[in-house]
C-alpha cells in the first residue's frame, strides 16, 4: 500500500503546470542513419540507373502511319509483354510514319534481358526480323576505343600428326588395354604374332578410357575432369575441367565432347552436363540433368549439326555451333518415350504410346525442317525399341504388343525402308520372346536371338529390294545372349557372355554357315576390330576375378593368341576415320584383289618364316646353353661318384686308398 501511494505521488502534476516537452533539444543530432531506420524502404527507392537498364531498343519494326499505329502497338505489346511488365513505350515518328525502331521500358532489368535473349531475331514477317538490344549496350559499343589492339598471339601447340597410327606400314590397328585392376593402361598395335606395345602408363586414367568416334583422341577420366591424348606419342592435347565427371560422349565429327558429372548441378548454374569445343577447350554450354540412367542424354545428328534430348513430353533440338535451340523452341510431344537419330541422315525417329483413343505411333521427322516424313500407327502397344541400320538405310521398330483379347505379349518388327519413296513399312511377326536384335552393318540383313533359355534360337533375315523380308536360316539350341556383327558386315559372332560361360559361334551370313564353334570360358566382352578381320573375346576382372585375359581370333573363328594380363579390365579397339577412297576406287581395288593378295601373302610368309627363324635360333641357343650346363653338372656328378659309393657303404677310404667293401685291396 505504501508503494502505490508513493508512485501516485510522483505522478501527480501540479495543477497548472505545462506538459513536459518531448522535443529534442535544439542542437540535437541523432546518430541513427537513414539506412538503419528505413533500410527496406530505401532499397526500393528508384535509382537513376535502374530506368536505363530496363530499356530495350527494338529495330526493324514496320514503319506505319498513324492509322495502323494502334494495331502495331498491340502486336508489339503481345510479343514483348511475355518477358515482363512493360511500363513505358516510345515510338519515334518522322514524316508521319514510325521510324522503324522503338523503345520499351520494363519494370525490371531482368525482363529487359529476357526480351533481348528471346526476341532478338524474332521473325515478325518476311520483311521484318526484330533486332533487340539493351539500351545500355548501345552506350557500351559506342565507347569502344578507336585504337585497335591486336589480340595476343597464342603459341602454336603442335601435337604432331594426329592420324599417325593410320600410317602403320602393316596396317595394324591399335587397341587400348586397361589392366592391373585399372592401375595400368597400355596401347598396343595388333600384330598376328603378338601384341606390340606402343605406349604404357601407370595411372593414366582413374576409371576407364574412351576413344573418340574417328579414333583421333583417347579420353581418360580423372576426379577433376577428362583429358584427351593423341598423336604419335599420346601427348595431352586438351583438358576439360568437370569435377566428378562420370560419363562422356563425343559428337560424331569429334568437334564436341559432352561430359556429365552428378556433382556440379546448381539451380542457377546448370553444370551437370557440359558441352565443350574440343579444339579450343572452351565450355560451350551447360545443362541440367536429372538422371544419367540413359546416357548419352544428348544424341547427335550424324553430321554433328544438331544434338537433341528428351525430357518429360518434350524434345529439345539444339544447333551447333550456336548451342541454341533450333527455332528457339523445344518441340512439345506429349508422352514421348524414346527417340533416336538416323545414323545416315538428319532424321529423328520417336514414338509415343497410346493416349485415350489415339493409337501409339512412330514418327520420322526430318530436321531442320521438322517435316514428318512418315507416321506409323501401332495398336495395343506395350513397348517399342528403335534399331537403326548403320547407314540409316533401314529402321527396325521392335514392337511389343498385347493383342486384344489375349494376355500374353507378342513381338513384331516393323521394318522401315528409308531409301524408298514414302518409306514403306513391312512387318515381321515373331513367335517367341526376343533376346537380341542386330542389323548387319553396310548390309540389309538382320539377326535375331529369340526364345527362352535353354531353347534359344537364332534367325537370319534378309530385307530384299522386292518388298519381301525373307527368313534365310534358323539355328536352334544356341548358347548365346548377344550378337556381334563384323563392322564390315557379312560375318558375325554369337556369344553367350557371362552367365552363359563364354560360348562362341562364328557365322558367315552369306550362306549362313557356322564357320566355327568355340569357347572362351567366362568371357564378358566381344570386340571386333574396325576392319572386321579380327575379334577379341575377353574376361574382364570387373566381372570375374580369375583367368583375366583377352584372346584374339580371326573373323572365321580361328584362335590366334591368348594374352593373359594381370587383372585385365577392358580392351577397346581404336576406331578408324572413314576411308579417303571413293566408291569407284574401292571397286577398282576389289577387282584387283588377287594382285594385292599375292603381295600380302608373300609378305606374310616372309614374316612367318622370320618368326620361325627367330624362334628356331632362340631355341638353338637355349639348347646349347642348357647342354653345356648339363655337361658341367654331369662332370661334377661323375667326379662325386666315389663319395656317393662311400655314403652307401660300398667304398671305404682307408689307408689312403679307396677300397670296395668286401674286397681285399
Amino acid at each position, binding site marked *: 500500500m505504501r508503494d502505490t501511494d508513493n508512485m501516485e505521488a510522483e505522478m501527480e502534476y501540479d495543477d497548472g503546470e505545462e506538459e513536459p516537452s518531448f522535443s529534442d533539444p535544439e542542437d540535437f543530432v541523432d546518430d541513427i542513419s537513414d539506412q538503419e531506420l528505413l533500410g527496406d524502404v530505401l532499397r526500393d527507392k528508384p535509382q537513376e540507373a535502374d530506368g536505363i537498364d530496363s530499356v530495350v531498343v527494338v529495330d526493324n519494326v514496320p514503319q506505319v502511319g498513324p492509322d495502323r499505329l494502334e494495331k502495331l502497338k498491340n502486336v508489339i505489346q503481345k510479343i514483348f509483354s511475355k518477358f515482363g511488365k512493360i511500363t513505358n513505350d516510345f515510338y519515334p515518328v518522322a514524316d508521319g510514319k514510325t521510324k522503324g525502331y522503338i523503345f520499351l521500358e520494363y519494370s525490371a532489368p531482368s525482363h529487359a534481358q529476357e526480351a533481348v535473349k528471346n526476341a532478338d531475331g524474332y521473325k515478325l514477317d518476311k520483311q521484318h526480323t526484330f533486332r533487340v538490344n539493351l539500351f545500355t549496350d548501345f552506350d557500351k559499343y559506342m565507347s569502344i576505343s578507336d585504337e585497335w589492339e591486336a589480340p595476343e598471339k597464342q603459341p602454336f601447340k603442335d601435337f604432331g600428326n594426329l592420324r599417325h597410327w593410320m600410317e602403320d606400314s602393316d596396317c595394324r590397328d591399335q587397341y587400348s588395354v586397361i589392366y592391373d585392376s585399372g592401375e595400368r593402361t597400355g596401347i598396343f598395335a595388333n600384330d598376328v604374332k603378338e601384341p606390340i606395345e606402343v605406349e604404357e602408363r601407370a595411372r593414366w586414367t582413374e576409371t576407364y578410357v574412351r576413344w573418340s568416334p574417328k579414333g583421333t583422341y583417347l579420353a581418360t577420366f580423372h576426379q577433376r575432369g577428362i583429358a584427351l591424348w593423341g598423336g604419335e606419342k599420346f601427348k595431352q592435347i586438351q583438358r576439360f575441367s568437370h569435377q566428378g565427371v562420370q560419363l562422356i560422349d563425343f559428337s560424331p565429327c569429334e568437334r564436341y565432347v559432352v561430359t556429365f558429372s552428378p556433382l556440379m548441378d546448381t539451380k542457377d548454374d546448370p553444370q551437370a552436363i557440359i558441352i565443350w569445343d574440343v579444339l579450343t577447350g572452351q565450355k560451350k554450354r551447360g545443362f541440367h540433368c536429372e538422371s544419367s540412367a540413359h546416357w548419352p542424354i544428348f544424341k547427335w545428328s550424324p553430321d554433328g549439326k544438331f544434338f537433341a534430348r528428351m525430357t518429360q513430353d518434350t524434345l529439345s533440338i539444339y544447333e551447333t555451333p550456336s548451342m541454341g535451340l533450333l527455332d528457339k523452341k523445344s518441340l512439345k510431344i506429349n508422352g514421348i518415350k524414346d527417340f533416336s537419330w538416323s545414323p545416315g541422315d538428319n532424321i529423328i525417329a520417336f514414338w509415343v504410346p497410346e493416349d485415350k483413343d489415339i493409337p501409339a505411333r512412330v514418327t520420322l521427322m526430318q530436321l531442320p525442317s521438322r517435316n514428318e516424313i512418315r507416321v506409323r500407327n501401332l495398336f495395343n502397344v506395350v513397348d517399342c525399341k528403335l534399331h537403326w541400320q548403320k547407314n540409316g538405310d533401314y529402321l527396325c521398330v521392335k514392337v511389343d504388343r498385347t493383342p486384344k483379347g489375349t494376355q500374353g505379349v507378342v513381338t513384331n518388327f516393323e521394318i522401315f525402308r528409308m531409301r524408298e519413296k514414302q518409306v514403306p513399312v513391312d512387318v515381321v511377326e515373331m513367335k517367341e520372346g526376343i533376346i537380341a536384335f542386330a542389323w548387319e552393318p553396310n548390309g540389309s540383313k538382320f539377326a535375331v536371338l529369340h526364345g527362352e533359355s535353354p531353347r534359344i534360337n537364332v534367325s537370319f533375315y534378309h530385307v530384299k529390294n522386292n518388298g519381301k523380308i525373307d527368313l534365310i536360316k534358323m539355328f536352334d539350341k544356341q548358347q548365346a545372349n548377344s550378337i556381334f556383327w563384323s563392322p564390315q558386315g557379312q560375318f558375325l559372332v554369337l556369344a553367350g557372355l557371362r552367365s552363359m560361360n563364354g560360348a562362341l559361334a562364328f557365322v558367315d551370313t552369306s550362306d549362313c554357315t557356322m564357320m566355327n564353334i568355340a569357347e572362351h570360358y567366362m568371357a564378358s566382352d566381344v570386340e571386333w576390330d574396325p576392319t572386321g578381320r579380327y575379334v577379341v573375346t575377353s574376361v574382364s576382372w570387373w566381372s570375374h*576375378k*580369375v583367368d583375366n585375359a583377352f584372346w584374339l581370333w580371326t573373323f572365321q573363328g580361328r584362335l590366334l593368341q591368348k594374352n593373359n594380363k594381370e587383372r585385365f579390365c577392358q580392351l577397346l579397339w581404336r576406331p578408324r576415320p572413314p576411308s579417303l577412297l571413293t566408291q569407284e576406287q574401292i571397286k577398282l581395288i576389289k577387282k584387283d584383289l588377287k594382285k594385292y593378295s599375292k603381295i600380302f601373302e608373300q609378305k606374310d610368309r616372309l614374316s612367318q618364316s622370320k618368326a620361325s627363324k627367330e624362334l628356331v635360333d632362340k*631355341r638353338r641357343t637355349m639348347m646349347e646353353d642348357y647342354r653345356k650346363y648339363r655337361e658341367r*653338372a654331369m662332370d*661334377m656328378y661323375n667326379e662325386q661318384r666315389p663319395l*656317393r659309393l662311400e*655314403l652307401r657303404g660300398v667304398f671305404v677310404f682307408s689307408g689312403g686308398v679307396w677300397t670296395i667293401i668286401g674286397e681285399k685291396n
Partner: protein
Amino acid sequence: MWDTKNVLTGSADNSCRLWDCETGKQLALVETNSAVRTCGFDFSGNIIMFSTDKQMGYQCILNYFDLRDPQQIEDNQPYLSLPCNESKITSAVWGPLGEFVIAGHENGEINQYSAKSGEILKVAKEHTKQINDIQSSVDLTMVISASKDCTAKLFDSTNLEHIKTFKTERPVNSAAISPIMDHVVMGGGQEAMEVTTTSTRIGKFEARFFHAAYEEEFGRVKGHFGPINCVAFHPDGKSYSSGGEDGYVRIHYFDPQYFDFELEA
C-alpha cells in the same frame, strides 16, 4: 630310403615315424611340438631331416637325426636343430651328397642349410610367393621348385643357380623333372577354399608339360576335376602320376609319340 627298406613319414599328428617297408612295422617315433611338414633321407640313408610348422606358439624348426646313433631318436635329441624365424619351411629335399638340405619357404625363398653346421650356405630369392613343392632330378644335380606365384623354376642343387623358369597362369602346386627326357611336368590350380569361381567343368584341371631347355609348354593332360596337388615321374620315365584335390591319383603312361616328340630347333 635308397634301398627301399625303410619309409619315413611326417604328419600333422605332430610326429615323424620310421617304418619297415616290407612288414609295415613302425621302427621309430619322434614326437614333435607341431605338425611335420616335410621329411627325407639323405643320399646315404643314414641321416633324416624333417621340418615342423610354425604353429601354436612353436617355431618352424629343421631337425637332423643320425640314425646310426639310436640314442638321438630315443631321447628325441636331434644332433642339429635349426629354427627358422622368418618364414616357415614349406618343402625340402636333400642335396646330392647329404651335405645340405635345400628348403623352400613360405615367402618364396630357397635356402641351403648345412647338415653339418646348420649355417645357411646359399640363398635363392627368385620366387615372389610361397614355395609349394621342391623335387630333385633323379641324379640330384637339379631341383625344381613349384610356387604360388604361378611359375616353376629349375635350380642347380650345388650352387642354387637359377637355370630355367616355366610360366603359367595358375599357382603351381607341384613340379617334377623327367628322369630320361628334357621335360618337366607341373600341376596346380587355385586352392579349393580360395576361389569358388574357377571352372568346375569335368576334367578342366590339367597337368602341363614343359620343355626344360626351351621353357615352352608342349602338352597338357586333362582329367582331374580339382586342383592337382602333387606330380611325380616314374623312375623309368615312361609314366607319371598326379594326385589331386578331387581325391584321385591318376597314372598316365606315355605314348611312343611322347618320346619322339621334338620342338623344331
